[in-house]
Every structure is written in structure tokens, then in C-alpha cells.
């Protein structure tokens, strides 16, 4: 499997802007739009955002630098990157764990992209501002129509396959350099519209009013921690994959770390500015999750001048945000499977997208299944992937080596010694804490049992699979034995 000779020269990003937009496009998703504004407002407003900002700099920025640097250093997808570091052994299976988590994540994220596509189409048809429109009934009828939800899931995976088949530069990059600025533009116009409505200041006060006492509550910090780690996609293999396509003289820490973490969070702040003034201006209560976007906000559009146009901006922007994330999540599997097998890129894209489509049918059919998988993989699957990637950097390759050999090479900013203990100790400790906290908080629930199965079975499957496959190849010493920083 792994000893297939290189098929062609490896692709590279065509421009620096393309790489940056790919990072932002991958990390900005539904969570930035329907989750961040609400949890900020409900956890002390400005106080929460300060806690979140501090954690971004402490954890997400260094973590993303490490993940992009691993991709850059090895020039491989997740499985190849693990092999470069641990050598040919069953431990390469931790790369398979990252792959499995990505496939699972995409299987239930694709139907969500389908929801945003459906609403984007209806915004273009001015459905939401038509007479007698009932948001809740419309939403329920949509979810109760499996032909529609599965059909949209199919359209989404077909679209993603078509873009990915074109390749990194002609497919992914060409799309993200337009989609991400278009999303920002949509939110900026919506912000201007919202801020000029009477009563908009209540929304601003909800998000940015500072309740300092929240900083003394552990719940605030745990929520901020989850948001800082999950919204930046740290350790999911996406940053590693995107980083593996960097060019010879490209920087890692400034673009891959600082810009990505702060830039993608800036879009969350922008979404808060775009959504809450509008919601409060018409006297609605803020909500969380899908209801905010698909029910609450939809009630707003008929109430405001130019509401039909604002709805188009919002839902088209929302669709682009989810689509670009879906593209890059799928690219993780495409890159590594294409490298590890004899399949060419088009065959790999068809195989990966076909598998995700098949696995995603239950989530497209039932929101209950989707929510269950989201909870299980959000709370345990994704932290497991993060632990695998940050663990291999921190404890096998060694952060000091990676910092000297890759992070500070061609770098736009200098990264000092402080980075080593953050990558080796702080991020893994925080991830273990999150996994344990969620398990404790949901002890005995079906979600917790599912999460524990993922935590136990995925590494076993990965290890067993790679022990067999790697055992077929001639033995070889680890490329990077030890890691004694």
C-alpha cells in the first residue's frame, strides 16, 4: 500500500492568498455563525470573548503552527506524515484514526451543508419574505422530507467531488479565493444593515456588554476552551494537509498560526455583529444551534427593509462557509488515500466522496442520528484526532526539532522557546481534560457510551490495520526516533 512510487510531482498552492483563504475557508463553518455569537452572549459577553481570545493565543495559535509545520516538514497527508515520524509500524494507525474521524465528521456535516444550500436557494427565490411564510413549519417540513434532505446531501457531495477532482490549485484554491471574501462581504453588508436598524444596540449590548464575574466561573473557561479548539479545527488533519501543499519558501507560523486562528475567529465576531443587532431589532430572543439560522433569523427578514436581499447575503454566505469547510475536510482523506494507494486523484475523489455519501445517508435521513454523531464526534472523536496529531509532534518528533527545522525556517515571525512546552504539555493536557470533562458530564448516556467506543475502537482498528499493512513492507527504522525536548 505505502510503497507505491510517486505518481506525479506534488501539487502546491499557486499563491500565498490561496493558502490563507484555504485555511480560513476550512476553519470557518457553521459553528462560527450559529454557535459563537450565542455562547458569547450567554457567558458574560465581552468577558467570554476576552477569555476566548486569551485561549486562542495560548493554545490555538501554537497548535496550528505545529500542525501546519508537520504537514510542511513531511510533505505528506496524515498517514504519510505519521509514517515519516514513527516509522513503519502499527503506530501509523493513529494517522488512520485521524482519517476515520474526518470521514465520520464529513458524513454528518454534508447534510448540514445541504440545509444551507436549501435555504440559500429559497433566499434567492425570496421565499422568506413572501406573504404567509411560516418559518417553523417550513423548517419542519424540510427535515421531514427525506427525499429532499438525502437529495441535497447527494448534490453537496457531488459538488465537492467535482471541485476536488480538479485538484488543489485548479479546484480548491480557485474556489476559496472567491468564496471566503464573498462570505466576509455578505456579513459586512448584513452588519451595516443590522446596525442601522432601530433597537440594534440591544444586540450589541448582549454580545459585547462585559459581565466580569463570568471570568471567575469555570463554565465560562471550559466553554471558551471548547470554542477556541473546535472552531479553529486544531488537530483534525486539515491544517496538516493544507500545510503539506506549501511551497519551498512559504512561511508557517504567521499565516498558518496567527492569521488562521485570529482571522477565522474574526469571522465569528463579524457573524455576531451581523446577526444579533438584526435579531434584537425585531424583538426576538437569541437562540442557539440550527434554530438560530433556520427559524429565528428567518423570522427577521420580512420585518426589515430590504430583508429579501439581506436573506440572500446571509444564506449564500452561510452556504459558502459550510461548503469550503466540507471541501477541505474531504481533502484530508483524498490527499492521504491518493498517496497511500495506486488510485489516481480522480478515482480517489470518487471513492472518498462515494463512501462519505453512503455513510451520510442516515444523518441526512434523521436529525436525531445527525445530532447523536455530532455530539459523539464533537466531544470525543475530534479531541482524539487532536491528541494523535499533537501527541506525535510533542512526544515523538519533538517540538524543539520541528521549531528549528520547519517553524522558524522561511518564517514571517520568530517563534521562541515558549512554544515547546505549550505543544508538548499544555495542549495534550487540555485535550485530555476536555475528553474527561465531557465523559464526566455525560456519564452513562448513550452519547458517552458512543464516545468511549470511538476512543477505544478507532485506535485499535487503526493500529491493527497498519500493523498488517506496514508489516508487508520491508522493515525500516523510524525517520525520527525519540523526542527528548
Amino acid at each position, binding site marked *: 500500500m505505502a510503497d507505491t512510487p510517486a505518481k506525479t510531482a506534488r501539487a502546491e498552492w499557486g499563491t500565498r492568498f490561496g493558502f490563507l483563504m484555504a485555511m480560513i475557508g476550512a476553519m470557518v463553518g457553521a459553528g462560527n455563525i450559529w454557535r459563537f455569537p450565542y455562547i458569547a452572549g450567554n457567558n458574560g459577553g465581552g468577558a467570554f470573548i476576552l477569555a476566548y481570545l486569551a485561549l486562542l493565543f495560548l493554545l490555538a495559535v501554537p497548535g496550528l503552527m505545529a500542525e501546519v509545520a508537520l504537514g510542511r516538514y513531511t510533505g505528506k497527508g496524515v498517514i504519510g506524515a505519521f509514517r515519516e515520524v514513527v516509522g513503519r509500524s502499527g503506530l501509523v494507525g493513529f494517522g488512520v484514526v485521524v482519517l476515520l474521524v474526518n470521514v465520520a465528521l464529513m458524513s454528518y456535516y454534508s447534510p448540514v451543508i445541504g440545509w444551507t444550500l436549501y435555504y440559500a436557494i429559497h433566499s434567492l427565490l425570496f421565499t422568506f419574505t413572501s406573504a404567509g411564510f411560516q418559518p417553523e413549519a417550513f423548517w419542519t417540513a424540510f427535515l421531514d422530507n427525506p427525499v429532499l434532505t438525502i437529495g441535497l446531501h447527494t448534490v453537496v457531495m457531488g459538488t465537492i467531488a467535482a471541485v476536488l477532482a480538479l485538484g488543489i490549485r485548479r479546484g480548491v484554491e480557485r474556489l476559496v479565493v472567491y468564496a471566503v471574501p464573498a462570505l466576509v462581504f455578505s456579513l459586512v453588508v448584513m452588519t451595516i444593515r443590522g446596525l442601522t436598524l432601530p433597537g440594534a444596540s440591544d444586540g450589541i449590548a448582549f454580545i459585547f456588554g*462585559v459581565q466580569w464575574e463570568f471570568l471567575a466561573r469555570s463554565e465560562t473557561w471550559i466553554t471558551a476552551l471548547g470554542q477556541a479548539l473546535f472552531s479553529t479545527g486544531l488537530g483534525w488533519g486539515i491544517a496538516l494537509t493544507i500545510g503539506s501543499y506549501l511551497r519551498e519558501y512559504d512561511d508557517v507560523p504567521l499565516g498558518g498560526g496567527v492569521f488562521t486562528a485570529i482571522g477565522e475567529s474574526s469571522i465569528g465576531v463579524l457573524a455576531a455583529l451581523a446577526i444579533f443587532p438584526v435579531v434584537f431589532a425585531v424583538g426576538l430572543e437569541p437562540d442557539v444551534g440550527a434554530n438560530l439560522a433556520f427559524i429565528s433569523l428567518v423570522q427577521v427578514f420580512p420585518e426589515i427593509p430590504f430583508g429579501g436581499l439581506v436573506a440572500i447575503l446571509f444564506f449564500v454566505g452561510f452556504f459558502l462557509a459550510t461548503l469550503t469547510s466540507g471541501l477541505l475536510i474531504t481533502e484530508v482523506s483524498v490527499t492521504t488515500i491518493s498517496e497511500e494507494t495506486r488510485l489516481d486523484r480522480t478515482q480517489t475523489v470518487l471513492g472518498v466522496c462515494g463512501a462519505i455519501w453512503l455513510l451520510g445517508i442516515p444523518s441526512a435521513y434523521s436529525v436525531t442520528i445527525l445530532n447523536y454523531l455530532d455530539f459523539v464526534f464533537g466531544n470525543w472523536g475530534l479531541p482524539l484526532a487532536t491528541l494523535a496529531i499533537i501527541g506525535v509532534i510533542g512526544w515523538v518528533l519533538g517540538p524543539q526539532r520541528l521549531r528549528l527545522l520547519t517553524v522558524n525556517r522561511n518564517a514571517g515571525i520568530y517563534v521562541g522557546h515558549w512554544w515547546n512546552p505549550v505543544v508538548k504539555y499544555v495542549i495534550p493536557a487540555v485535550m485530555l481534560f476536555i475528553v474527561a470533562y465531557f465523559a464526566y458530564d455525560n456519564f452513562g448516556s448513550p452519547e458517552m457510551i458512543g464516545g468511549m467506543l470511538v476512543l477505544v475502537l478507532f485506535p485499535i482498528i487503526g493500529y491493527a490495520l497498519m500493523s498488517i499493512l506496514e508489516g508487508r513492507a520491508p522493515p525500516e527504522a523510524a525517520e525520527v526516533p525519540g523526542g527528548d525536548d
Partner: protein
Amino acid sequence: MALSAGVLGMLAFILLAFYGVAGWALVRTLRQESRKAEILEEQDRMDTYSPKALAELRDWIEDNPDDPLVDEARRRYNECVDTLETTDRHFYDWSDREIDRLEQI
């Protein structure tokens, strides 16, 4: 409802902290990219480490002679030194005196 000074202050701080930092990083990295492209148009290679980062790499090589990655580190170090000595334009802020003091390992 008029916004309080506290809310306005926090809004201003957050906008500065997020958009200020993200904007600074974006502009800086794109400018650096242009500069790198300009240098590579004139010469086929470019220095890869800043003076501080290269000094740190040298110290690590000297302190870890048996590390499995020391050969790769040495290659990267020597490649940067060679480039600095044989090219006229440099990306990082190297003085002639600093370059004169450099030696291959």
C-alpha cells in the same frame, strides 16, 4: 437604548484585537510574499533563517551531535550559510558583519 461606555470600549477593544491582529498578519505575510517573489526573480535561492533562528539552530546542532536529525539540521544550516555568502539580496535582516562571521558546520 444608548450603548454604555463599557460596551463601546469592549467593542473597540475586540475589533482591534481581532481585526487589528488578523489584518496585521494578512498584510505582513502578503508583503513578505511579494518581497520573496521579487528576490527570487533576481536570484534562484534565498536565505531561509533569520540571524536569531540560525544561531539557535547552530547551538542545537552543537549540543545534540548524536540526534537522528542532526544531519538534516546541519544541511539546512549550511544551505542557509551558503546562500547568504553567495547571494546579494537577503530576505532577513542580515548585516555584512554577521554574514562574514558565519561558518559552515
